[in-house]
């Protein structure tokens, strides 16, 4: 099969016209399924958004405060990143939605010409701010900057995201930790459905900004199913799978993911929130997810951890002081093209540029991994890709994590 065209339009694979299906002309979003894995639930799509098209499966780096750490927008473009994240909570606090609106939205403020996704801000409030309280009205919390009590309602969350002007907005959801059980989980799920409706009606820019629903329900299959039933009744351009990757057992995690993708409409994008470890990405692509985000690759870079196909290198460790090869000899990123492990090791003692070098490498690693995954789906050899990926990640008889083996087996990919 030919490599997919970057722009949307009639699909080149005429034999499969059923897959050519824009979600709805009402949304500023179109999903074209380019290829589906005949074995697993993996799929390769082109997601067209207001600021250009995005090939999926895609990893979206997180630029919390309107910047991708020490990387310039131009460097991020050169890595062929098509979409990245901004955090509504942080940006809503500083510099504030009014200022960003004056700067022509977050795109203008940070001068990023490609797509942006913003979260609802709810997750940060619950996880970062002490004394936050959730009521039917919204999330009540105390500002860490001036101590004032602030109520974030679904309407306000969408209002801020409208000011930010992101291409994809997330609904405000009632977040409970994935390890919480009992009636609170159901309450949060039901409330998230109600809040979704409030978010949909609050969206001032439905023709420019896509609002995604977030599937909740904790680790309870019944609640997840109920949430899926309710939310898929709503006309939204895409769905996120939320409430996971919060410290739950991996065995529970993957079952909730696969349950969700089983019930999500085929023609809409599926975004698995907060997932970014390489193995998790590959497995969850097999389970049918299209989009991923995680702070891990950029955060870990600043501590000197470089991602490689066989795990990671802790560049600050003494063993790399005289190691004159690049982080990954096969990597084609600007860092590996020019610098050795030994130099990066030395530079870490002097300057922040050492972090930038590893951040660039790690973003490149994530994006390259997803491009390879995608190519294998398009070329109908995804299961073989998964097998060789896992062999490389767990060499020399190191056992595969059992959850990954089971998750992959559930979609008919057997590891050797």
């Amino acid at each position, binding site marked *: 099969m030919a490599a997919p065209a970057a722009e949307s339009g009639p699909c080149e694979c005429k034999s499969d016209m059923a897959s050519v299906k824009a979600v709805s002309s009402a949304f500023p979003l179109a999903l074209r399924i380019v290829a589906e894995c005949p074995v697993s639930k993996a799929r390769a799509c082109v997601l067209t958004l207001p600021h250009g098209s995005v090939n999926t499966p895609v990893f979206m780096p997180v630029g919390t405060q309107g910047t991708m750490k*020490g990387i310039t927008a131009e460097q991020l473009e050169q890595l062929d990143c098509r979409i990245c994240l901004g955090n509504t909570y942080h940006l809503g606090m500083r510099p504030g939605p009014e200022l960003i609106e004056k700067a022509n939205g977050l795109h203008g403020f*940070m001068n990023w010409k490609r797509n942006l996704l913003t979260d609802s801000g709810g997750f940060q409030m619950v996880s970062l701010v002490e004394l936050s309280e959730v009521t039917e009205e919204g999330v009540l919390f105390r500002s860490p900057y001036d101590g004032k009590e602030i109520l974030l309602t679904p309407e306000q969350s969408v209002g801020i995201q409208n000011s930010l002007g992101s291409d994809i907005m997330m609904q405000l959801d009632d977040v409970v930790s994935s390890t919480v059980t009992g009636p609170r989980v159901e309450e949060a799920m039901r409330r998230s459905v109600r809040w979704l409706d409030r978010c949909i009606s609050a969206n001032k820019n439905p023709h420019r900004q896509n609002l995604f629903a977030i599937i909740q329900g904790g680790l309870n299959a019944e609640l997840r199913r109920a949430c899926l039933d309710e939310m898929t009744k709503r006309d939204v351009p895409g769905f996120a799978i939320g409430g996971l990757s919060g410290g739950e057992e991996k065995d529970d995690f993957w079952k909730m993911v696969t349950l969700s993708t089983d019930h999500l409409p085929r023609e809409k994008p599926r975004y698995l929130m907060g997932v970014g470890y390489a193995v998790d990405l590959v497995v969850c692509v097999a389970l049918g997810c299209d989009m991923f985000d995680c702070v891990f690759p950029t955060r870990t870079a600043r501590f000197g951890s470089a991602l490689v196909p066989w795990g990671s290198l802790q560049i600050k460790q003494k063993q790399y002081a005289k190691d004159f090869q690049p982080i990954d000899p096969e990597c084609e990123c600007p860092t590996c093209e020019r610098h050795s492990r030994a130099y990066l090791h030395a530079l870490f003692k002097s300057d922040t540029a050492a972090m930038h070098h590893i951040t660039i490498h790690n973003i490149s690693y994530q994006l390259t991994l997803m491009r390879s995954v995608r190519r294998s789906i398009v070329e109908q050899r995804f299961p073989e890709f998964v097998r060789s990926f896992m062999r490389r990640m767990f060499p020399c008889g190191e056992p595969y994590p059992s959850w990954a083996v089971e998750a992959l087996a559930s979609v008919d990919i057997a590891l050797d």
Partner: protein
Amino acid sequence: MCDSISGFAVNSATCSTCVHVPCTIPLTTLDCTGAMKLELSKVVRGCRLGLLTSIGQTSQHSLEVPGCLLYTRCATVPHLTQDTLHTLHNLPAVTQVTLESLAEHQEILEEFKHGVRKFAGLHDTLLFCTLHDPATTHPAGHVTNKTVSVWGSGGRIELSVAKFMAMQAAIRPDCYESMADGETWQANTSRKRVRKAVERTLSHLDECLELHHKTQELKGSAIFGVVEGGDILEERLRSARETAKRPVAGFVLDGFQSTSMEQELREQLITAVTAELPQEKPRLLRGVGHPDEVIAYVEAGVDLFEGFFPFQVTERGCALCFDYTATPDPETAGTSPPTVLESNGVEPAVEVLKENGEDSPENMSRFEMNLRDTRYRDDFRPLVDGCSCYCCKNHKRAYIHHLLVTNELLAGVLLMLHNTAHYLGFFHALREAVANDRLKDLKSKVLQ
């Protein structure tokens, strides 16, 4: 001949009060100047306009004077990767590396064997290695007759001439300054101490020259001799004359970085020193970076400066914004360097603050604006209107302000790009001004 050098070194080391014996080494047999040439195209009222060519072994690079080096730490321009650095045009052909930031990596560099340029992934640049990092201060009191000290991330590293030269062999710079006792910049240094510093520095130079000759790795690289002498004219002159007798490629004027010395005295001393130095060899002034001082010392006969000032400005969250347009000439108006957008009724962006030489926001100079100031919160202008650096072409003051108040790493990247561009633009304007006899205009612009 070698005996005479080492005998001399011992002599001066054991007797700190003796008057230095002129060096008698024939220049032809012990040439440590490399192939470097300084072609002066114009000398007017002390200012020297020219081109430094054939620096290093194989290079076709040249460096315009008056000019500055590209400042680095561990061979990296602070905050910048090669990709961000090369968004800047007309970078100086010579990069400064410091022994201070490299000394702790000696063993690694020795094992690597190909020098710092290759180790750091640099290609198209020449290296000038200096002893200390001009942007940091270090504790005094660690100089002995035979050693000087630098501070790495793991603490103090003591250098004998032998270790110093072994480091140079591992670094393989195109130029380097000889080892020097540069501790006499402090206020109230005694005459005796200044004298001793001159002695030691000459003695170190002789040892460096001798070892240089024996070091295969340094073939083709050039030594700059260091002129000391504190604030005492006779010592300055003696240091200059004695250094000039040695086969050095150029001179580093050390010990003028102190704010405890009056600028007028510094100007007098520097003018007196440069008068003693041969015309055809370049003079680098260590530790001075403010634009007004740069102009003053160019008029006193200095050719080269270290480019650390933009880094210091960056570290305090500031952006250089001083005006350096010297040409109202309509012929060149179209190509004139950027001016600050200041006169549109908004409050002036430049604050005049007291300066006491420290690297903190309170100590900013009048050449910069403090982007942390809340007035920039909703200022959607570039840092400097008309500046063509990556930062000014792509971002607004409000964004830089946001990056600073949220402690984001990109603030350092963008400010470093702008400040470097602005500073290099100033040096370009300075050369143009000397060439076109407009230094007076430039001076009044910069000093206004």
